Every structure is written in C-alpha cells, then in structure tokens.
C-alpha cells in the first residue's frame, strides 16, 4: 500500500487529498467535520452527485485517521486539467457551474468559501466540482470571501478574451492566481472599461481599494450582506457571464477539414476507416488526440470503442468547434488547449503544485494526425525527437506522416529554405521501427500521407 499526498492540495489547512493504490482519498480535519456532515446530511452532497455536478464522497473506515478526523473516498476524474488548458467555452462552463453550485448550496444552508477555478474539473465537457471542503455552513449576513478569487480566475479572463479577442490561456499559465482587476482594466478597450457592469463590478471596487485599502492595517469591518444580496450578486454574475461570447476570427484550422484540398472524400473515408479499425482493435480506455482540431477523429474513435478522448490543440477557434461537437453529441471528449511544442510545465509552489502534461500521461493510445510536420518543419524539432515524444506518450498509437509535396507541408516551406534533408517517409519509418513495432502502414492520400500504427508493448 502506498500513500501519496497531492502536491496541489495544501491551501486549505482543514484537509488534504492523497492517493492510495489508485484511490483518491481526502483527509478532513476534525475542525471541518461539521461542515462535511452538513454537506452530506443537508442533502447537498447527494443532490450534486445525482446531477453529476460534483465528485462523490464516501466515508472510509480502513484508512488511518486521528480522533474526530474523517477520510472520504472520491470518484475519479478521467483526466486532471488546469484552467490554462481550457478553451473559452470550457472556462465559461466552469464559471457558470461554480455559480449554479453555489446557488444550490445556499438552498441547503451552505455557501462556498472560495472561488477557485482549480476546484473544477471536466468529465467530457461537463464541469464537476471536486473540492468538497469549499462547502461551509452559511449564516445570513456572510460575505462571499471567494468573490475576488472568482473574478480573477473566471470573470476577468473571460472578459479579456471576449473584450479584446486575445486568448487568456497564456496569461493564466503565466500566473496561476488568475488575472487581477487592475491588470484587466489596463487591457480592456475604453468602451468596455466604462460599460456599466465593468464600472460597477470591477473599476469602482478596484479604485476604492487602491485608494485607501493598503494603508489600513486593521481588519476591515463590513456591513452584513443579506442572503438576497448574495443571491443577487451570483445571479448578476451568472447573467453577465452567460452573455459573454468570443470571436477569435477565422483561424487557420477552424475550417481545416471543410476547406482542405489534400483529401478528397474517398481519401477522408479511408483515414476514418483506419482510425476506426485502430480503436476497435485497441479499445483504449483513454485516448489522447493530439492536434484534435474540431474533433472529427475523436468522435470516430469514441464510436469505435475508445472510452474517453482528451483532445489537444492550440487553435482556439477549432477548440470552440470541438467543444460544440462534444456538447451537442454528449461525447466523452474533452478538447483542451495545448501547444505540442511547448506543453504545460510543472509549476506553482515548489514547481509541483500543478503537474506537467508529461506527469499527467494516462493515455492507453494516441492519435497524432497531421501533426508531426508542424513540429518537425514548423518548429524545427528534429524528426527523431518528434517521434520520441509522440511514442513516449502512450504504448500504442496512430501517427500520420505528411510527405514533402503535400500542399499543406509545402505551405510551411514556401518562404524558407528547405533544411530538412532527412525529412522522408523512409527515415520516419526507420525512426519508429527503432522504438516500436510498426503494426500497419496505410497511405491515405494522393499526396502520399501515411498513417503509421505503432505498438511498443511486448517484444519488437
């Protein structure tokens, strides 16, 4: 039996997450036990679980705990992701979920102590609340102490993307505390900055606090906020966020499959068939679709036997389309923001609070379709290093090779010297063979695009 504490679970001293042989357990200190009891006995916990809004919590007795402390077991989330990996739609869904959960909690005599986006995870594109210690007893008059954190983690990034068209992901990755009010106000265009909502909710409090708040060392006293006021605040935020949209413009990839001329229908059909057969054979519980675009092949994978698909792409508009697909069709598909040439690092406190993408590897199989040339040609990553990285992600997978002469590849080379003498299909094949068994090889386009099915389990 091995016990391992979660490196990102330490901010609230009343409890901590740890892992025991694949189980997710939470230690709840005696000081938080009454809140946990209320969470379960008020019916809030069961109501959230029934709706799929929160992880389940089941008390366990076979784990060591001091007197009065509790240990509970939580249901597992297919893949842990972070707000800087979410698309606009995912962050918006998480924000609305946070508010809806809070409103439901108030109906049960509880409130949320914080407003952290890291307390939400996704199962498909359904947000799930994971931090049950955030639920505390509500007393009429209490302020919501997580309001500012909610704004920094959710509202401000959404307003940034919505108001300027600049994606928030790199900012959230740069500062895991979110985007502060003063930072946002410097970035918003004038007419957004002085809109009534921004004026009242962000500009006014920011100016008032920077005017006098810092000099005063005494704890601030404040007027009790009646429940109707708190509900008003939450509904007001909800309505505001609900109405936020984003226009990232027409990006390179958002219409890739509809506009691309590298495939005719018959060829697309062939690629689909290989992906479907791959998934029918491997039946991966978890598949990573790297460079998922709008999720066409993720969907095929799911209908061919894959249990969950996590898609990665760095095109924000394509991710929006992928989110739409997953939501409309209720797919077990989570499309996430990720630049394969610069994947999420380990960061936060001690460089371990938020885990790197590599540390979160849990794929049984990968799809990497029309991806490697962006790394090998677009980013100058030597072909051997690209193959190393991809094959290291999962024991088996399907990798597409795009040869020179393909119009999409030639586009990458049109304004530069071709310094990629070893970029050949034969070399690519050899590189895979050195690391895994090539199960199958299918040419799927007239330009010579080839799907390599590799398997590095067992003997080669």
């Amino acid at each position, binding site marked *: 039996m091995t016990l391992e504490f979660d490196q990102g679970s330490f901010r609230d001293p009343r409890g901590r997450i740890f892992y025991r042989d694949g189980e997710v357990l939470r230690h709840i200190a005696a000081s938080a036990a009454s809140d946990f009891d209320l969470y379960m006995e008020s019916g809030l916990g069961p109501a959230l679980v029934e709706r799929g809004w929160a992880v389940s919590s089941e008390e366990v007795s076979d784990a060591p705990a001091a007197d009065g402390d509790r240990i509970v077991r939580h249901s597992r989330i297919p893949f842990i992701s972070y707000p800087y990996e979410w698309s606009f739609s995912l962050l918006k869904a998480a924000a609305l979920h946070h508010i809806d959960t809070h409103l439901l909690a108030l109906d049960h005599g509880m409130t949320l102590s914080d407003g952290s986006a890291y307390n939400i995870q996704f199962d498909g594109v359904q947000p799930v609340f994971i931090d049950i210690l955030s639920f505390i007893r509500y007393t009429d008059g209490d302020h919501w*102490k997580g309001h500012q*954190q909610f704004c920094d983690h959710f509202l401000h990034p959404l307003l940034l993307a919505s108001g300027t068209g600049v994606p928030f992901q790199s900012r959230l990755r740069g500062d895991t505390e979110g985007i502060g009010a003063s930072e946002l106000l410097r970035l918003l265009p004038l007419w957004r900055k002085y809109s009534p909502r921004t004026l009242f909710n962000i500009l006014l409090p920011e100016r008032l606090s920077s005017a006098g708040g810092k000099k005063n060392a005494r704890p601030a006293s404040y007027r009790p906020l009646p429940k109707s006021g708190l509900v008003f605040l939450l509904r007001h935020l909800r309505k505001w966020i609900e109405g936020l949209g984003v226009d990232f413009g027409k990006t390179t990839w958002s219409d890739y499959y509809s506009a691309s001329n590298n495939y005719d229908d018959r060829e697309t059909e062939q690629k689909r068939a290989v992906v479907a057969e791959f998934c029918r054979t491997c039946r991966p519980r978890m598949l990573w679709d790297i460079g998922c675009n709008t999720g066409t092949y993720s969907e095929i994978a799911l209908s061919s036997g894959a249990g969950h698909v996590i898609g990665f792409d760095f095109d924000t508009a394509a991710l929006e389309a992928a989110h739409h697909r997953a939501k409309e069709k209720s797919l077990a598909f989570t499309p996430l923001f990720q630049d394969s040439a610069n994947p999420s690092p380990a960061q936060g406190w001690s460089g371990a609070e938020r885990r790197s993408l590599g540390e979160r590897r849990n794929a049984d199989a990968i799809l990497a379709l029309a991806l490697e040339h962006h790394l090998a040609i677009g980013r100058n990553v030597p072909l051997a290093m690209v193959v190393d990285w991809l094959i290291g992600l999962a024991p088996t997978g399907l990798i597409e090779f795009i040869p020179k002469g393909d119009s999409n590849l030639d586009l990458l080379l049109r304004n530069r010297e071709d310094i990629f003498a070893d970029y050949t299909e034969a070399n690519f094949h050899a590189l895979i063979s050195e690391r895994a068994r090539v199960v199958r090889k299918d040419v799927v386009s007239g330009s010579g695009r080839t799907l390599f099915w590799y398997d590095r389990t067992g003997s080669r």
Partner: protein
Amino acid sequence: MFVFGFTLGVVALALLPSQAHAYLDPGTGSMLLQGIIAAIAGGLAAIKIFWARIFSTVSRLVGRGDGGGGTPSK
C-alpha cells in the same frame, strides 16, 4: 462617550461574520462591492417598509383598509 464607543464596538463585532473559515483573503475591493450591495439591499428593504407604512396609513385614512392586520375582526 466611552460607553457609547464601547457599545458601538460590541455591535460592530457582533455584525462581523465568523472568521473561522477565512483561509482566503477576500480582498478589499470585493468586500467594498459586497458592502455596497448590502447597503442597496438594506435601502430597498427600508423603502419597502416605508411604502408599506404609507400605503396602510393612506388606506386607513380613506377607510378602505383592514387596519393592517389582514384578518377581519369578528
């Protein structure tokens, strides 16, 4: 004066919600905003009571009211 100040202090302390769960700094701006909403909510409640009183007084004066009790006397 001392007694007044002391009483005010006790009242202010009583109005402060429990700090037991405040592992997070709520932020001055956020507290001010919620204070403003609280003031507006308080103001709205006062206006509501005020109007209810005026309404019941006027109703009584013109003789159509039920005296504000709601239940007719037998």
